[in-house]
C-alpha cells in the first residue's frame, strides 16, 4: 500500500501541508530543546566551582561521591525549562497531528470507500493511512531537525549568561539529540495517525456511492471509554491539588489541564453540539439566516466541529490554567510574606554588596548594624547571615539556602512558629527546618542532617524544631548565628528587619533611618513597601517562566488553529458554490462562515475557561490554606489576550480561504461545471 500512500500524499498536498507544518515546528522545538539540553550537559563547570560530597549509599546502592556545583554556576535551571518545553511541545504535537489526520481522513471518506469497493481490505486502508503519515512524518521530522540544528547556536547565544544559565554554552555534538527529536517526531506522528487510520479502516465500500458525506453522528465506545478514563484521571489529579501538596501544586496545575484537554477532546463530538446549541441561541435571535445556518453546520457535523475546536481548547486551557495558577500562587506567596514579617520596617542591603557577598571586605555589615541600632527609636534589629550549604541524603545532595539567626531578635521580627520541637534549643550544631521540607524528606525532630559547608567542612546538624513555612522570608534551614558566621565569615545580611521601641511610630523610625543610613546604600522602608517589592519580583519571575514555557506552545497552537480552520474551509468549496447557486450572496456566505467559526471558537473557549477556572479555584484553595485576607489577582490582560487571539485566528483562518473560494466561484462558472 506504500506506493499508494506516496501518491495520495502528493495529491492531497493541501490536506497534509497542515500536518507537515505542525509536525515540523513540533520537531523543531523538540530538537532545539534536545540540542540545548545536550549543550547544558556537555557544559563543564570551571574547576573549584563545585564541591565533592560523599554519599553513604543505602539498600545495596554503593557509596559514591557527587560534585555539587556552587552558587548556581551551572545550567540546571535551563535544563528544567527545556525539559518542560519538550513535554509541552510533544503533547501539543500529538494532539495536533491526531486532529489534522482525523480531518484528512474525514475529508476523504468517498475516496476511501472507493478503495474498499475495488477490493482494499480494512487492514490495507489502515496501512495506507499509516503510510501517508510515515511519508509526511519523515519529511516534516527531517525538516524540523535541520532547522533545529541551524537555530541551536542562536538559542545558546541567547541563553548564555542569563538567570537560567549564568554560563557560556557551546553547541555539543548534535547527532544524538537530533536523532532523538527525529525519532520522537516520527513516533508522535504515528501515534497521532493511529486513531485516524483505525477510523479510516471502518469506512465501508458503500460510502463510495453515497453522495452526502455526512459523518456518522455517534462516536465509538472505545473513544468514549478513553475519554471517561482521561476525565477520571484528570479528576484524580484535581483532587490532589490540596493544601498539603505544597510545591507539587504547580506541576499539577500544568499536567491536570493536559489530561482534561485530552478527555474533553475525546468526548468533544458529544459535548460540542450541546454547548454549540446553547451559544447559538443569541446568535439565532440576532441574525436572520446566517446564524441559523452556522448553528446547523456546527451541530450537524459534531466531529468536524470537535476537531476544529480541539487546538483552541488545548491552548486556552493549558495557558489559561498556568497563567491563573501562577498568579494565585503569587497571591498566596505575597500573603505569606505579609503574615510572616512582624517587624514594621525593613532595611535592604546595598544592592551591589548583596549581589556578591563574598567580595565584601572589612565587615561593612557590622557598621550598618551599628548605624541602624544607633538610630533613635530602634529597639532591636534582626539581620541574619545568609549562607548556602549542601544537605545530604543517603542518595542525593542538594544545595540549600540557610541562614544564621540571632535567637533573641529574629523570632520577634519574623514569624517563626514551631509546629514541632522548640526553637529556643537552637544552639550549637542544631538546625530548624521548614514544614514542607520535613514533609518531603520525612525528617523528624531529633534527626540529624549531614551537611557540607562551602568551606568543604562537614557536620551533622540535629533538628530541634520544625517551623511553619514562610517562603520568601525565612530560609528553609535555620541555624544558630555563630555556626553560620564560622562557616561564612564574609556573608552579610540581605535585609534587616527592624523593631522599633515601644510607643515609637514606625514612620519616624523610617525617617531617622533614612537620615542615619544616607550614603551607605542601604534603604529603609516600611514593611508593606518591602513586601510589595518582593511580590513584584515573584510575578516578574513568573512572567519570564510563562513566556519561556508557553511561547513555543502558543506559537504552535496558533499554527494548529489556523491549520485546521483553513483545511475546514478549503474542503467546503463545493458547498459554497452550491449555496451561491441557490441564491446566497457572497456576503451571506461570509457571515455564515464568520458565525460558524466564532461559534466553534466560543464553544472551545468556554470549555477551556471551565478547565482554567476549576484548576485556578483548586490551586487557590490549596495555596491559601491557613492564610487570611489573600488578595485575588486575576491576570485579565493575559487571559483575555489568549481568548481574543484564539478567536481572531480562528475567524481569520476560516474567512480567508472562504473569500478566495468565493472570488473564484461566480454562479455562472459553477453552472458550467
Amino acid at each position, binding site marked *: 500500500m506504500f*506506493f*499508494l500512500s506516496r*501518491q495520495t500524499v502528493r*495529491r492531497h498536498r493541501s490536506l497534509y501541508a497542515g500536518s507537515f507544518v505542525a509536525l515540523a515546528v513540533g520537531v523543531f522545538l523538540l530538537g532545539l530543546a534536545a540540542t540545548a539540553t545536550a549543550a547544558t550537559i556537555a557544559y563543564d563547570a570551571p574547576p573549584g566551582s563545585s564541591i565533592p560530597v560523599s554519599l553513604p549509599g543505602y539498600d545495596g546502592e554503593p557509596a559514591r561521591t557527587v560534585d555539587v556545583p556552587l552558587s548556581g554556576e551551572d545550567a540546571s535551571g535551563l535544563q528544567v525549562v527545556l525539559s518542560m518545553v519538550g513535554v509541552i511541545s510533544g503533547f501539543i504535537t500529538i494532539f495536533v497531528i491526531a486532529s489534522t489526520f482525523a480531518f484528512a481522513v474525514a475529508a476523504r471518506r468517498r475516496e476511501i470507500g472507493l478503495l474498499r*469497493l*475495488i*477490493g482494499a481490505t480494512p487492514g490495507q486502508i489502515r496501512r495506507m493511512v499509516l503510510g501517508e503519515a510515515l511519508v509526511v512524518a519523515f519529511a516534516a521530522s527531517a525538516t524540523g531537525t535541520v532547522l533545529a540544528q541551524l537555530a541551536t547556536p542562536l538559542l545558546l547565544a541567547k541563553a548564555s549568561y542569563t538567570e537560567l544559565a549564568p554560563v557560556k554554552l557551546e553547541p555539543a555534538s548534535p547527532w544524538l539529540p537530533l536523532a532523538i527529536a527525529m525519532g520522537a517526531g516520527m513516533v508522535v506522528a504515528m501515534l497521532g495517525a493511529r486513531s485516524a487510520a483505525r477510523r479510516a479502516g471502518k469506512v465501508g465500500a*458503500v460510502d*463510495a*456511492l453515497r453522495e452526502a458525506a455526512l459523518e456518522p453522528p455517534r462516536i465509538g465506545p472505545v473513544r468514549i471509554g478513553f475519554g471517561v478514563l482521561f476525565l477520571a484521571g484528570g479528576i484524580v489529579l484535581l483532587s490532589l491539588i490540596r493544601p498539603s501538596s505544597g510545591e507539587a501544586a504547580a506541576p499539577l496545575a500544568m499536567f491536570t489541564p493536559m489530561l482534561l484537554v485530552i478527555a474533553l477532546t475525546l468526548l468533544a463530538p458529544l459535548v460540542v453540539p450541546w454547548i454549540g446549541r446553547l451559544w447559538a441561541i443569541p446568535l439565532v435571535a440576532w441574525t436572520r439566516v446566517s446564524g441559523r445556518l452556522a448553528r446547523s453546520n456546527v451541530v450537524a457535523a459534531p466531529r468536524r466541529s470537535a476537531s476544529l475546536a480541539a487546538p483552541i481548547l488545548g491552548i486556552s486551557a493549558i495557558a489559561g490554567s498556568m497563567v491563573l495558577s501562577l498568579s494565585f500562587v503569587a497571591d498566596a506567596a505575597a500573603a505569606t510574606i505579609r503574615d510572616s514579617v512582624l517587624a514594621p520596617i525593613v532595611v535592604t542591603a546595598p544592592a551591589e554588596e548583596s549581589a556578591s557577598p563574598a567580595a565584601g571586605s572589612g565587615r561593612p555589615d557590622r557598621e550598618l548594624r551599628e548605624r541602624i541600632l544607633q538610630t533613635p527609636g530602634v529597639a532591636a534589629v534582626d539581620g541574619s547571615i545568609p549562607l548556602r550549604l549542601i544537605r545530604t541524603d543517603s542518595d542525593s545532595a542538594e544545595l540549600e539556602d540557610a541562614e544564621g539567626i540571632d535567637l533573641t531578635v529574629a523570632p520577634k521580627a519574623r514569624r517563626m512558629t514551631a509546629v514541632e520541637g522548640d526553637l529556643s534549643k537552637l544552639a550549637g550544631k542544631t538546625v530548624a527546618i521548614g514544614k514542607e521540607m520535613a514533609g518531603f524528606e520525612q525528617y523528624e525532630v531529633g534527626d540529624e542532617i549531614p551537611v557540607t559547608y562551602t568551606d568543604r567542612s562537614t557536620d551533622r546538624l540535629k533538628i530541634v524544631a520544625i517551623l511553619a513555612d514562610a517562603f520568601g522570608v525565612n530560609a528553609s534551614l535555620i541555624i544558630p548565628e555563630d555556626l553560620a558566621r564560622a562557616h561564612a565569615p564574609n556573608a552579610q545580611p540581605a535585609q534587616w528587619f527592624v523593631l522599633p521601641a515601644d510607643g515609637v511610630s514606625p514612620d519616624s523610625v523610617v525617617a531617622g533611618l533614612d537620615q542615619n543610613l544616607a550614603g551607605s546604600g542601604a534603604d529603609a522602608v516600611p514593611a508593606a513597601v518591602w513586601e510589595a517589592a518582593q511580590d513584584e519580583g515573584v510575578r516578574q519571575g513568573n512572567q519570564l517562566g510563562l513566556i519561556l514555557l508557553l511561547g513555543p506552545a502558543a506559537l504552535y497552537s496558533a499554527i494548529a488553529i489556523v491549520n485546521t480552520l483553513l483545511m475546514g474551509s478549503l474542503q467546503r468549496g463545493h458547498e459554497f458554490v452550491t449555496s451561491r447557486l441557490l441564491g446566497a450572496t457572497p456576503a451571506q456566505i461570509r457571515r455564515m462562515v464568520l458565525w460558524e467559526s466564532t461559534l466553534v471558537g466560543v464553544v472551545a473557549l468556554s470549555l477551556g475557561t471551565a478547565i482554567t477556572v476549576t484548576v485556578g479555584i483548586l490551586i487557590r484553595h490549596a495555596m491559601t490554606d491557613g492564610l487570611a485576607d489573600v488578595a485575588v489577582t486575576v491576570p485579565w490582560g493575559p487571559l483575555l489576550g489568549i481568548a481574543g487571539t484564539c478567536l481572531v485566528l480562528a475567524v481569520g483562518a476560516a474567512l480567508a480561504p472562504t473569500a478566495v473560494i468565493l472570488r473564484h466561484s461566480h454562479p455562472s462558472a459553477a453552472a458550467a461545471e
Partner: protein
Amino acid sequence: MTTTAPIHPNVHVGEPPALLLDGITKTYRSKAGAVDALRGVTYHFHRGSFTAVMGPSGSGKSTLLQCAAGLDKPTTGTVLLGGTGLHGLSEVALTKLRREQMGFVFQAYNLLPSLTVYDNVALPLRLTGKRPRRDEVHQVLDQVGLGGMARRRPAELSGGQQQRVAIARALITRPAVFFADEPTGALDSTASRQILSLLREATDRAGQTVVMVTHDPVAAAYAERVLFLSDGLVAGSLDRGTPQQIAAAMSDLER
C-alpha cells in the same frame, strides 16, 4: 407487460447460476419509521447473461444492486455468488470475494485522481498482492480503446474515457459478475454506446455476467433481458425488447 414473476424459466438445468437472490428484503429504519426498500426479491442471474434492472425512482433497484454485491446486508434472504453465500462472511472475506469475483462501474467514474490511468487499472491487482504484468494492463487498456493513455491522469480525460478506465479496472481481475449502476448516466450518446458495447462484449466473449441498473431504455436494450422492479418487488421482465418496447413497459409500470 410480457411475463410476471415466474422465475424458473431462466434457470439453466444443471448449471448453478452466477448470482442467486433468494427472498431478499431490506428495511431501513430511522427515527421517522421503517421503510421497506425491498419486499422479497428472488431471482437467478445465469452465467454469461446481461440483465438490465429498471424501475421508477424508489423502486429499490439501487438497493437490490448493493445487496447483491455485498455492499449492504439484506434484512432477510440470502445472496449466493458463484455458489458462495455472502451472509456470515467477515468484512475481510467479503472484500476478498469482491475483488476476485466482482467488478463495479458506477455513474460517477470513481477513479482515484492521484493515480495515472495505468495505476488506476492496476490497482485491484496490487490490492490482491499480485504484481501487475505490464502487458496485461496494456492489453485491457487496448481492449477499452485507451491504448496510449496509460500515463494520463483522470482529470485529463473526458467523461467517456474515464468511464472506460473504470471498465478496464473492473475487467482486469476477470470478475464473474459486473455490477453497473447507471454507467451511462453522465455520458453523451456516443460515449454511452461505447460503454454499453464493452459490457455486451464482456458477456458475449468472456462469459461474464452483467447486472446493470439504468433508467435509460436505450441502454437497457443492450441487455438480453430487462427486469422491472416496482415497490421493492419484481414486477415483470422483458426479453430482447427494443428501446420503444422497454419505454412502453416502463410507462405502464409508472402509471
